[in-house]
């Protein structure tokens, strides 16, 4: 009578899935659009960290819409022949039972390196002529191997659900299992999982199965799972690599966001490249990487990602010519990210005031917040009467006024 709760309490309907509301909405609209004919993009590429509900979303939606789901893992379709045999037929032929179908190719990350014998290319070819929706799932859609494939897909990102949402899912399971759980015990398990719902459910099962009641004391002894550990190893491999190839390979080995990794390298390179000439060269490489990052942002042409990766990994590693070992220097969390998240509320406030000014003065919101705000601040601090008039004219709300008064 042992069944994994991740299977037993798998969401039966999309409505039961926690988090990722936007992504699920986009995805289900795309699937539904097939009933009106073949849409522009015949495949959807769902990507995001493990355990956030990518596969479950597809399965639940197929169930909700009464569609037949044909699914396979990457390990089953490595070769071109295997892909054609499975997905090729399924994408061109109808169902035996009159329902429409969704083809799901899961765990695309598994098609790595030499093991991928034409698999990705075969998938791309199938998508071009597919007569039914094809769904691809991977942790990282921006793997350089998928460059070509990506252009045929709508990309849908699944993010880690908030701890409160994970807790909601655990709560539902505890109700079904008839286990009384302290609110803060659920919260603790949810937080510890850092958005990985699957691992949260597994942890919860390990802790709660067979119990009638689970208290905070029962769970609190578990420490936080150390996810930062993996990025530290990755940084060490990149910064201290002796060959450009191994620096580049490091990126493939871990499941990290490239933008985030860039910030990590930028933050930590100065501490680890002690020689000024080396550091100058490393910064030069990083600036080149950043130039390409900018081009990706403006053109959405992700093929530039290969230059970003080369410059920020191999470029930095190869700059290390004269630097002596820095000894044991801990890696630091990117301060820019910290700063951005701390100043998030303030930036939002500045922008909303800027928008108000924009409407009255016909200048851009960012220029307004840059050029007008300092003066408004002086006025609001010193001349209440004038400030009142301006507030009315600009239609500022109480929060904005409070902010300007400082």
């Amino acid at each position, binding site marked *: 009578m042992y069944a994994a709760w991740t299977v037993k309490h798998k969401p039966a309907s999309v409505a039961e899935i926690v988090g990722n509301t936007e992504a699920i909405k986009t995805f289900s609209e795309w699937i539904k659009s097939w009933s009106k004919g073949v849409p522009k993009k015949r495949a959807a590429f769902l990507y995001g960290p493990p355990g956030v509900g990518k596969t479950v979303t597809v399965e639940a939606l197929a169930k909700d819409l009464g569609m037949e789901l044909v699914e396979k893992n990457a390990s089953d379709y490595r070769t071109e022949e295997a892909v054609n045999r499975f997905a090729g037929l399924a994408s*061109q032929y109808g169902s035996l039972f009159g329902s429409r179908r969704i083809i799901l190719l899961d765990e695309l990350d598994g098609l790595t390196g030499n093991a991928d014998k034409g698999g990705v290319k075969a998938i791309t070819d199938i998508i071009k002529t597919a007569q039914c929706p094809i769904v691809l799932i991977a942790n990282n859609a921006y793997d350089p191997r998928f460059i070509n494939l990506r252009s045929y897909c709508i990309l849908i990102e699944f993010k880690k659900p908030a701890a409160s949402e994970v807790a909601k899912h655990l709560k539902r399971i505890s109700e079904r299992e008839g286990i009384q759980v302290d609110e803060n015990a659920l919260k603790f398990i949810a937080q510890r999982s850092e958005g990985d719902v699957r691992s949260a459910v597994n942890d919860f099962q390990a802790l709660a199965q067979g119990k009638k009641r689970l208290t905070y004391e029962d769970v609190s002894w578990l420490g936080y799972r150390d996810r930062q550990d993996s990025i530290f190893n990755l940084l060490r491999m990149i910064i201290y690599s002796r060959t450009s190839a191994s620096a580049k390979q490091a990126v493939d080995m871990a499941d990290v966001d490239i933008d985030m990794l860039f910030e990590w390298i930028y933050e930590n390179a100065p501490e680890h490249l002690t020689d000024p000439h080396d550091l100058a060269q490393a910064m030069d490489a990083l600036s080149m990487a950043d130039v390409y990052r900018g081009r990706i942002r403006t053109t959405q042409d992700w093929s530039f990602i290969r230059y970003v990766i080369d410059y920020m990994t191999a470029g930095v590693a190869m700059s290390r010519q004269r630097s002596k070992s820095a000894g044991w220097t801990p890696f630091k969390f990117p301060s820019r990210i910290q700063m951005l998240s701390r100043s998030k509320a303030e930036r939002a406030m500045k922008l909303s005031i800027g928008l108000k000014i924009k409407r009255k003065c016909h200048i851009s919101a960012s220029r307004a917040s840059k050029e007008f705000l300092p003066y408004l601040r002086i006025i609001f601090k010193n001349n209440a009467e004038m400030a009142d008039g301006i507030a009315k004219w600009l239609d500022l709300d109480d929060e904005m006024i409070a902010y300007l008064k400082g």
Partner: protein
Amino acid sequence: MFKLKVSDAKLLRDMVTAISILVDEATFKIEPEGLKLRAMDPSRVAMIDFEWPKTVFEEYVCEAPSKMCINISELLRLLKRAGKDEAVELSLDEKTGRLQIKITGKYSRNFNMPTLEASEEEVPTPKITFNVKAKATTQGLSQAIEDAQLVSDHVRIEADTEKLVLNATGDLMGATITLQKGSDALLDLEVKENSKATFSLSYLAEIIKAASATSDIATLEFSTDMPIKIDFQQTKEGKLTFFLAPRIESE
């Protein structure tokens, strides 16, 4: 307790060959009345419906209904070792969960292989109203399919009251194969409504080739853009039926 015995290994081998076309792992239903299998291929485009009543076997013992899942290609490899007049005995060792395969002829050999976790999926019968029913020799059919395979990987099958026409269009070449009603190949044809549908040639060819080892006459039933049902009449009792989904035709 499950055990079956056939005096002619070829019969068993041909059947398993037919199953192996669609599935790698097959979950057999073992029932007191006989052996059953209903499974879909991984792409869920084709389905096999297979029944073997216990009367087909020399010996058949089943005390309680159960399920048994085995790797078909592995089983086939073993069965290929058996000659034409050799007897085969299959039995399930309940303690170890392994399938014992005993082949006896000039000498005897015992193989055993693991059974796998049985699939819980119940495959329903497709509900289709067929407008065409054609009876053809498997030999004639497999010839026609081979002709069509020269030019394309899919074929449109059309029927009116007089004839069955196979139309294949490839990138470069085309082919039209006509089977007249009452000819040596097409024994009978009943058409309620002129129909046409397109199917995968690779599956058709493999299915017909494998099934023709066990059967001389096949009954095809289909309707416009609906799945086709191919029933292979068995020389002894038993049932071997395939369903194949139609190709989605884009304008």
